Each structure stands twice: as structure tokens, then as C-alpha cells.
């Protein structure tokens, strides 16, 4: 076999074309083939030179994404806000001026003042503290939901997209089944009947908020599964997968190491969307009384308490809601920024 060593000009061209066209998720098949250790070009010299070219490319791809993300001031600001909220949620006792259940009987249902910036509720508890503790629970549940839904959705989508055929059919029918049912209603049903109390499975006790998280995750994974499946379906036929298979890579390796990294963009973007939706849905559930049950505070149930007390004390309804809006906005902006950063083919804003 006569293999021609790439001339110096060619390697240079490889690098040049990379930097000229920018990042993008399209990698030439040859480069991908060479990127698989032990696979691809039999010519060691060619493999080495290609690999080093690819490495330079890999670095620049994420660097480009980072640069593009930080150009969106709104997304960056949102990240700061979200980080701040997360810190507060992580250490509520440190930030809350009072305990979540401390009652100040002299100040029942008081309007916001310096001492109680968010006012007090019907039992005289400082509302700011209640909101902070509620923030912790709501945020934690939302993250849990996003994580679980992503794991489930990615797994199902990957399997369906990679193997195709019967597996794909079955999994997609299953997904359709979930999708046919009106979301919130099913959630309510599930939450009402399943999530009302903590359940114990042997030595492990699943707390009630976690139950809600599980139920939510179970309905949120479908969108992600579709997206991941789409990516897998389109990439499965590409040459680099064939090359990997030819060099003996197992299915699992191909899925995880080769195709999955290409999904990271859409997955991350969808994950942020799930966090935002989870916050809103959990709040709705808690508001209706089916979500996180008292005495655990959650933003939605706080609003419910406020509502029950009559609409005269507007602060009881307003502040938790504002916090929800803030979180949802921030997460949406971040998701938007991420989408612009990871998908360079989209139109860039002026």
C-alpha cells in the first residue's frame, strides 16, 4: 500500500482551514477517523499529524463557544444572578435573618418594613426567610428534575437512535404514550396519588419533595429523547462511526465517546429549558396543593398560603412569584446564550 506522507503544506492547510472557518460541529471524516486511538490511518506519521491538528481544533471549538457565550451580556448577567441565588439557596440559614418558622406575634401579616423586607405572613413569620428557605427547596427540586430527565432522555434517545429498528420503534411508541397525556393533568394525578407523602423503600427514605422531583422528571425527558435520537440517527451513518467499528470499538464506546459528545450542545440547552419549566411546574403544583407539602416551604406553596389569606396582603403573593420569575428569566437567558454559543450556524445578533 502506497501511503503518501502529507506534505508540510497540507498539514498547514488543515490548521488554516480550521481557524478560517471557525469552530462548528462538523469535523472532517478523516480527522475524526484519526482521532480514534488505534484506528484510522495506518500511516503513523499521518495519524500523528492529523491528531495534533485535531487537538488544536478541539481546543478552539470550546474556546470559540466560550467566547461567543460571554459576548451575550444578558446571559452572563443571568449567570451571575443565578449563581448568587444558588449560593443563597445552598446556605439558607446563613442568609435568612430569621428562622423559617420563627413567629413574631407582634407583627402578624405586616407590610414590608426594614426589619422585615418582605413583610410577615399570617403567622407572623418573616417572609424573607420563608422565601429563602422556599428557594432552596424549589431550586433543588428543579435541578434534580433536570438532571434525572436529562439522564433518562439521553439514554433513551441514544439507544433508540443508535440501534434503530425495533428498539427505536418501541421506545418511540413509549415516548408517544407519555406525550399523549395532557401534561399538567397527569402530573397532578401522579402527584396527588403518589407524591403525597415520603415513601420508604427499605432503608432509603425518599422525602416528599424528591418524590415530586421524580414524578416531574418522568414526564420531562421526552423532548430530550427526541433531540438526542435525532442526532444519533443522523450521525450513525457517518464514516467515523464505521471507522470506529472497523477498529473494534464496542457499541458502548462508540455511543459514549464518539457520538454523544456531538449532542452536548443541544443537551445542555434543553437542560436549561427543563430547569426553567421545572421551576414553573413545581410552583404550579405546589400552589394547587399537590406539589411540595407543608411544612416544607416551597415558592409555589408560599404563594398558595398567601392566596388563601385573602388578597389584601399583596406581598405574600408578590415576592415568591417575583423570585420565580427571576429564576426562570435568568435560566432562559442562559439557555439562549448557550444556544448561540454552541450552535454557530445560527444567526448572530448585531
Amino acid at each position, binding site marked *: 500500500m502506497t501511503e503518501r506522507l502529507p506534505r508540510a503544506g497540507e498539514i498547514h492547510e488543515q490548521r488554516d482551514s480550521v481557524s478560517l472557518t471557525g469552530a462548528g460541529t462538523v469535523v472532517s471524516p478523516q480527522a475524526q477517523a484519526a482521532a480514534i486511538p488505534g484506528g484510522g490511518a495506518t500511516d503513523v506519521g499521518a495519524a500523528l499529524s492529523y491528531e495534533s491538528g485535531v487537538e488544536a481544533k478541539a481546543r478552539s471549538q470550546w474556546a470559540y463557544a466560550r467566547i461567543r457565550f460571554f459576548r451575550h451580556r444578558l446571559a452572563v448577567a443571568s449567570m451571575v444572578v443565578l449563581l448568587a441565588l444558588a449560593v443563597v439557596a445552598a446556605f439558607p440559614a446563613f442568609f435568612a435573618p430569621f428562622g423559617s418558622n420563627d413567629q413574631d406575634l407582634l407583627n402578624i401579616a405586616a407590610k414590608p418594613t426594614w426589619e422585615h423586607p418582605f413583610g410577615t405572613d399570617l403567622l407572623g413569620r418573616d417572609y424573607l426567610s420563608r422565601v429563602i428557605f422556599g428557594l432552596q427547596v424549589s431550586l433543588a427540586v428543579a435541578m434534580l428534575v433536570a438532571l434525572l430527565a436529562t439522564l433518562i432522555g439521553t439514554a433513551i434517545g441514544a439507544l433508540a437512535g443508535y440501534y434503530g429498528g425495533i428498539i427505536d420503534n418501541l421506545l418511540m411508541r413509549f415516548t408517544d404514550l407519555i406525550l*399523549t397525556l*395532557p*401534561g399538567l393533568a397527569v402530573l397532578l*394525578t401522579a402527584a396527588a396519588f*403518589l407524591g403525597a407523602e415520603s415513601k420508604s423503600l427499605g432503608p432509603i427514605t425518599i422525602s416528599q419533595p424528591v418524590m415530586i422531583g421524580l414524578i416531574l422528571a418522568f414526564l420531562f425527558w421526552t423532548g430530550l429523547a427526541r433531540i438526542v435520537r435525532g442526532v444519533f440517527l443522523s450521525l450513525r451513518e457517518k464514516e467515523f462511526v464505521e471507522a470506529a467499528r472497523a477498529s473494534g470499538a464496542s457499541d458502548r464506546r462508540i455511543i459514549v465517546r464518539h457520538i454523544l459528545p456531538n449532542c452536548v450542545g443541544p443537551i445542555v440547552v434543553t437542560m436549561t429549558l427543563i430547569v426553567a419549566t421545572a421551576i414553573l411546574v413545581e410552583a404550579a403544583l405546589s400552589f*394547587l396543593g399537590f406539589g411540595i407539602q407543608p411544612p416544607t416551604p416551597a415558592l*409555589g406553596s408560599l404563594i398558595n398560603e398567601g*392566596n388563601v389569606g385573602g388578597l389584601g396582603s399583596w406581598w405574600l403573593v408578590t415576592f415568591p412569584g417575583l423570585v*420565580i420569575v427571576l429564576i426562570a428569566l435568568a435560566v432562559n437567558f442562559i439557555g439562549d446564550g448557550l444556544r448561540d454559543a454552541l450552535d454557530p450556524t445560527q444567526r448572530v445578533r448585531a
Partner: protein
Amino acid sequence: MLTYVIRRLLYSIVVLFAASFIIFVFVSYSNDPVAFLKMQPTASEQTIQNITERKHLDEPVVVQYVYWVKDALFNQFGTTTIGDRPILPDLQRVMGHTLQLVIAAELLAILLAVFIGVYSALRQYTAFDYSATTFSFLGLATPVFWLGLMLQVLFVNIYLWFDVRIFYTANLSGIDPGTGIHFVLDRAQHLGLPVIVLMVASVATYSRFMRASMLEVINSDYVRTARAKGLPERSVTMRHAFRNALIPLVTIIALNFGALLGGAVVTETVFALDGMGLYFVRQLELGDPYPVMAWLMVTATFVIIFNLIADIAYGYLDPRVRYD
């Protein structure tokens, strides 16, 4: 085309059955409908016994399911567990109210969103575009129920200060609303706030989508060809760009219908509207699987029908997708 529709319908029926079975089992296992009664000291043993017999509560779940299916198909969904109240008339009544709400909200939302989306796309990066985008972001981030509450707070305070009732939802089906303009005004007064609240999320979603779709189309090659033919800009925008941009939106709208009914649940609870949402929540609180199942089946059917409508409409609008 006809075979396609029939195939879809048959498939949907299978899905419906499968879903109903799963939900029924799940609902029955996790809940004892007479538990509520058993806790009442005034309920006699005899009553409980009657109910248990009537609803076959002592038999295996699968058998119960079969009875339920029989009831659902031939007996108008049967009756509630407690009180033996026929389900269908109630369901019909509340469905009427909810449909008024949902249809009004959707139609208005679509009109508004299409206009906003198209205009934003045509005048990209202008003040209008930026404010529309901001509004969309806010709309998507605001919890529906909270918005409803805030609006109520606002209007309650207006009532308290000015003694003027602008919007209220009591007596939705009590007083005869009259015909013609009186009907419209009456409905507007009763349903105004809930419609606005429902619209917000829809307008936000649809307008963003419309804008993105329109932008993509405007930069496409065939729009360039249309311009190269010397067509007036208006014709290019309407006949070539808009028609194509509308197609994916149709699908989104139809698919959104399922989510709408869910949103209606929350909105109706907040506004105490006598609609499907409130009905559902109440029955859920009571823990009675029969009306809950009936509700879910009806809603699921709606969703399936609307999905089908979405696909057919898509095929009508986009000749590349005709099903033969």
C-alpha cells in the same frame, strides 16, 4: 390520505386503551376511594358496603378496569363513587365553559402572536423587536397562576378603591348572557382576566417561533428568487415568505392544545371558574378515580384529534408532505 387518517385513528385508539389501563391501575392502586368515607363517623357501614359492591372495589384491578371500560363506552362514563352522580352531564357543562375560555384565548393569542412575530422579523433589531422579545421572555418566565393572582390583586384593589367591578368570574352560567353584543360583553367581563392570563404564555411562545420562522424564510433562496423576478416587496413578503413561515407554526399551535388544557387547570383554579380544570382538581382532591379517568380520557382524545388535525393541516399547507 384516507388510509393514513384511518391508520392514525386506529393507532390512537390502541394508545388510548393502553394509557387508560396504565392510569387506571395506577390510580386504583395508590388510592382507596372510600377512604374518605371511612373516616366519616356519619357514614354507615351499609353505605360503604353499597359503594364497594357497586364499584366492584373488592375485585382485582383488572376486573375493575373492565367494568370501567364498559361504563365509559356504554354508560356515559358512569357515575362518581361517592354520591353516585352521573359524570357525563357535569363533564359536558364544565367542558363548555373551558372551551369558551380556551378557544377565545387561543384565537386572540394566534392573531396577536402572528402579527408580532412577522413584524419583529421584518423590522429586526428595532425597538419593536427588542420590546417584543423582552415581553416574550417575561411571558415565558411568569408562572400562569401567579400572573392570575397578581391581576386579581390589581382588580380587587381597583374595586376596593373605586367601587367598580370590571372583571369578575362569578356566575359564569347563572345569568343568561343574552345575544349579540351583550353576549360578547358579558363573556368579556367574566372571562377577560383568565383569557388574558392564558394568552400570555401562548403569545410569548408563538411570537418567538413566528419570528424565528419568518427570519429563516426571509433569508432563503426562493425569496431571493422572488425578488429577482421583480415582484413588489409586499408580494414577496406575503405570498412567498409568510405562507412558508406559517407552516411550522400550525403544527406548534395544534400540538400546544394539550398543554393548553393543562394551563386551563391552573387558571381556572385561580379564578374559581367553573370549568374542566377546577372540576378535575376537585375530583382529584376527593380521590375518586372515575371522574378523574373520564376527564383524562376526554382530554387525551382531544389531544389526539388535534395532533391529527395538525398533521393533516401540515400536509395541506406543505405539498412536500402529502400522505398517500
